[in-house]
């Protein structure tokens, strides 16, 4: 069954899928990778993003990506608020490991129930002119349903990477997980910096939610299927590395696509997680992580 046509399309489809995975994992890379906060509710926030995008798309006809971008400030504020509760309740008292994890489990269930109460449990999809259309370049098929999320994810990842590496606040976010005391000596408030970082992490969930609902239908508990995958991507990329998260997402996407095409879709998860295990054996710190 092997052919150049199949191989090239599988590679391209894997890259497009990997781009989407990067968008979902990006916020977690900041929150979990750089702040060491095990925000297991991140995929639930992505689903919340999908629903608010669905609401604006249905009511106002707004493009899903645009709607996702418009909601980023609101998600940022929500992120700051959630972090402040987490800090006051757990981090400040040093109970963040187990109690903090339970807190985010709780947040996840509260989000699911809130969405059910507001929107019900039915599946939701959005309308956009490009959904269902395909760009054909030679033998390569590029469904816009995957291409638009890929391009958006690339732009968002580049923007976040630029912000973290080129601005004072961005560098402070990178520094806060490495040496909090040194950061305080530099005159920066670590709690404020962490609030900011958590807010940014959640702001990306609004956009990731928009990309998710472009790709397919969502229902309130759909985020659960992404929990394992996004944590795997962040760990594979190396804790705290945006570049690593992107590369890991693309790697997982391509390996899934190749396996689905040439071996069988039932093996896709097994191979993706084997890539994770193999990488961690060879590089325990992940692709771009620090020991």
């Amino acid at each position, binding site marked *: 069954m092997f052919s150049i046509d199949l191989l090239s399309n599988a590679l391209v489809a894997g890259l497009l899928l990997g781009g989407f995975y990067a968008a979902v994992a990006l916020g977690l890379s900041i929150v979990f990778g750089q702040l060491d906060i095990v925000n297991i509710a991140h995929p639930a926030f992505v689903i919340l993003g999908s629903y608010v995008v669905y609401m604006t798309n249905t009511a106002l006809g707004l493009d899903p990506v645009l709607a996702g971008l418009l909601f980023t400030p609101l998600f940022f504020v929500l992120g700051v608020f959630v972090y402040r509760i987490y800090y006051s309740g757990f981090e400040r008292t040093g109970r963040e490991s187990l109690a903090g994890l339970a807190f985010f489990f709780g947040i996840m269930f509260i989000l699911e129930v809130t969405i059910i109460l507001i929107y019900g*449990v039915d599946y939701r999809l959005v309308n956009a002119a490009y959904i269902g259309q395909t760009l054909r370049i030679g033998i390569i098929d590029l469904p816009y349903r995957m291409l638009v999320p890929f391009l958006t994810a690339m732009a968002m990842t580049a923007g976040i990477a630029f912000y973290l590496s080129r601005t004072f606040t961005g560098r402070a976010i990178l520094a806060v997980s490495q040496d909090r005391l040194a950061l305080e000596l530099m005159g920066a408030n670590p709690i404020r910096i962490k609030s900011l970082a958590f807010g940014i992490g959640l702001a990306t969930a609004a956009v990731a939610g928009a990309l998710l609902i472009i790709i397919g239908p969502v229902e309130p508990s759909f985020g659960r299927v992404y929990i394992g995958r996004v944590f795997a991507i962040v760990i594979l990329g190396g804790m705290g590395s945006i570049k690593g998260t992107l590369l890991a997402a693309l790697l997982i996407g391509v390996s899934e696509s190749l396996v689905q095409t040439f071996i069988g*879709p039932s093996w896709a998860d097994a191979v993706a997680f084997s890539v994770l295990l193999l990488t961690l054996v060879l590089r325990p710190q992940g692709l771009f992580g620090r020991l």
Partner: protein
Amino acid sequence: MVPIRTKPLRVWVFAGVFAILFAAVATLPSTARADSHPIKIGFSMTLTGGLAANGKAALVAMEIWRDDINKKGGLLGRQVEFVYYDDSTNPANVPGIYTKLLNVDKVDLVVSSYGTNLIAPAMPIIMKKKMVFMTLFGLAVNDRFNYDRYFQIMPSGPVPKEDWSRGFFELALAQSPKPTSIALLATDSEFAKNAVAGARTNAERAGLKIVYDETFKPGTADFSPIVRAIQASGPDLVYVGCYPPGAAGIVRAANELGLDVKMFGGGMVGLQYAALLTKLGPQLNGMVNYDFWAPEPTLNFPGIEEFLKKYQAKAGEAGVDPLGHYLPPYAYAYLEILAQAVEAVGSLDDHGKLAEYIHKTTFNTVVGPVSFADNGEWAKSRVLMVQFQNIEDGNIEQFHKPGKRVVLYPGDVKSGEFKYPYTSAR
């Protein structure tokens, strides 16, 4: 001297009647004394989690039935009330829920949650209590238990796995030129794998060459590589068993990549719901998929329109499928059957007699006449094969009318002509 006052005669009469009544009530059996108490029907339901969309829709339909029967005076002259718990679409929660329903809540009757995976875990508990178990959309659950008081409302037929896809194959084999090969694809879940197992048996029996036979994990985001692999294997037919997220992804990928086969569809859950019908719209044209009811003139059973009006009025507020063609009529019907049996037997206590009555009776319900085979499945399969035709846009109104999901199979409810092959029908 104070005169002695004798009690008037009427006081003595009243006291006597009261004493007789009191004695009569005191000597009645406890069940008869409880006659004024409501009849409790217990169940677990998928109100949150992956199958919540159907579970909540089922609950809306069941509440309509409860209100209807209570307005008519109740069951055996007693009002009916529900005792139910959310199983969160988690099979592990089900045994505990039914144990509580039976031992703590002391319900009089039990019915099932929605779906194969949520029915099977309740079976050992119900079997131990020897109760009649009306179940909602389980595929071949009783194959493993052989319980003679199990009854299943989904019209999958006496050999459920194979009857589920029989129509797809009978339609395909009646075409010219006859298809010779098939691709099979299923979600990695019990229901979908059962559906595709039946399709595999039917394909082998028909002498079709199986060129692709795979499962995929729930949560698969992009189906383009899978659809390309299917296309590369060159099948004439593609039979898919999956849930709504998979259905949407596969239909979109098939359209985006121009899947070129003779028949495509089969056992895809979700293509019966307004959410997917309206958003996939014309991308569905030409597909042949299973269904259980559609607004076609051949399926206009007594009471169905009235039920759907009530359901659709409540659906918006409940946040469930606004059409309600798929599961809700059957959720209403399985309670109709239970109630008709209880009224006929005249008792809640003898579940042996109840089961016997259900086995030998044909029930008139909103989904038409229903009778059961020895294994508790429908005596004759009525899994419809419908073809999506003339869908123009995402307008929901079109799906309330006939002509969009044309019934091709079975022949006695056929409502239109088959457009074949898929590539030109789309």
